């Protein structure tokens, strides 16, 4: 698999470590009501789709950036690669939320 890094261009997937579903960016608020259930779902439950899947990859043998890679789990085709930082900021994270 080749991952088309937004800054470095196409890189071999062996340079990366995958951490899992990109939904992990949306860490629940530990002080909110129902935080226990929210954390259970966040930590343990997965959509695990057959088809397009957004996931977090870490470029540990490269520039150590975090990426959100959209990939097809039926064909291994890499559809889209974004910097996780930009995805997280677009979700409104990193603003004290």
């Amino acid at each position, binding site marked *: *698999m080749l991952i088309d890094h937004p800054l470095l261009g196409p890189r*071999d*997937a*062996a340079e990366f*470590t*995958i*951490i*899992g*579903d990109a939904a992990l960016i949306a860490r629940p608020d530990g002080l909110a009501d129902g935080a226990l259930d929210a954390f*259970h*779902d966040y*930590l*343990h*439950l*997965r*959509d*695990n*789709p*057959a088809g397009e*899947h957004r*996931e977090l990859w870490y470029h540990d043998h490269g520039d150590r950036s975090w990426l959100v890679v959209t*990939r097809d*789990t*039926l*064909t*291994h085709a890499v559809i889209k690669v974004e910097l996780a930082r930009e995805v997280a900021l677009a979700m409104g994270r990193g603003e004290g939320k």
Partner: protein
Amino acid sequence: MKYSAWKIFTQGLAGNSGWKPVWREPEPKPSYDILVIGGGGHGLATAYYLAKEHGLANVAVLEKGWLGSGNIGRNTTIIRSNYLLPGNEPFYELSLKLWEGLEQDFNFNAMVSQRGIINLYHSDAQRDAAVRRGNAMIMAGADAVLLDRDALKRKCPYLDFDNGRFPIQGGLWQPRGGTVRHDAVAWGYARGADSRGVDIIQNCEVTGFKIENGVVKGVETTRGSIGAKKIAVCAAGSSSRVMATAGLRLPIESHVLQAFVSEGLKPIVPGVITFGAGHFYISQSDKGGLVFGGDIDGYNTYAQRGNLPVVEDVCEGGMAIMPMIGRARLLRSWGGVMDMSMDGSPFIDRTSIEGLYFNGGWCYGGFKATPASGWCTAHLLATGNPHPTATAYRLDRFRTGHPIDEKGAGAQANLH
């Protein structure tokens, strides 16, 4: 037809013209008492034990492809019960005991071959862990023998004992472990279930569930709707896809595990040998091919094939303990889709929908569990209570704080 040496003899005289297909190809009935989704090892074993142990034969097995087309035909055929934790070890030991009587039980040659399994250890700490594991196994009624360096050297002189990074100090040996002809397991269970009246319906994909007021009433399939009082989902690899149609999210990710076989060689590896400092396990098939595997590829996938970095990683593991295999040529490799659960342990449990039962999350270890998995799932379906050896395999164990952290890795590839 009961198989025996006499049958082979008389059929030989008759030009082998009298052998019959060993299961029917029935049309689905409008409804059954129990539906089993998934015609692989676990589903067929569940149906077999429902019919044989509990006398429940108004049962159908629904299989989306052909019988045994999933992981029962794609594994490395190893059986063992060398687990540590109380939630696991009695279950896997039950499985090994069922393997030992399986061929007589279902009158089919599954080539159960108990040639032993050796887990190597490479440090003092690993030796201590092996002693602890061996004691846990013996306490659960299994067998375990600690081999020191000299004893191991007599059994397996070809191992790289003085490897620069991971010198081999010894191994934990389970003499009753071994290998089984995996396809024959599916065929034997299918034949046994069919002959007791279970309908095995192939090319019948479940597309949805009929659920009324939180009670399951049946399924929608590509061959029409089928009613049922109870439904067991035994579709490991596709568990999330099937259960999503019932509106349930599971603590499971699907990953690919690759396996490899070399060209046929003269007998060299007596049983199963596993690397203690990396992930690599190897045995030799009856045809002479070295059968081996290692880690999952690490990314979510439903494709039954992996990528080259893991091929390299697995072969490196092999070279680290057994440099002699370096000149053997790799003949084939393939991949199977695993249900990787969040703690690396399986589920056999009810779900939040009444009448819907779930069997899955087997990670790398589903094949060896096949008989006990079927036994315990059948027990749960027939009696309404979990089998005593499978009480820890709860689907809600993460919510209640009772994960089974046998290895503590689960689906997280960077922890493997």
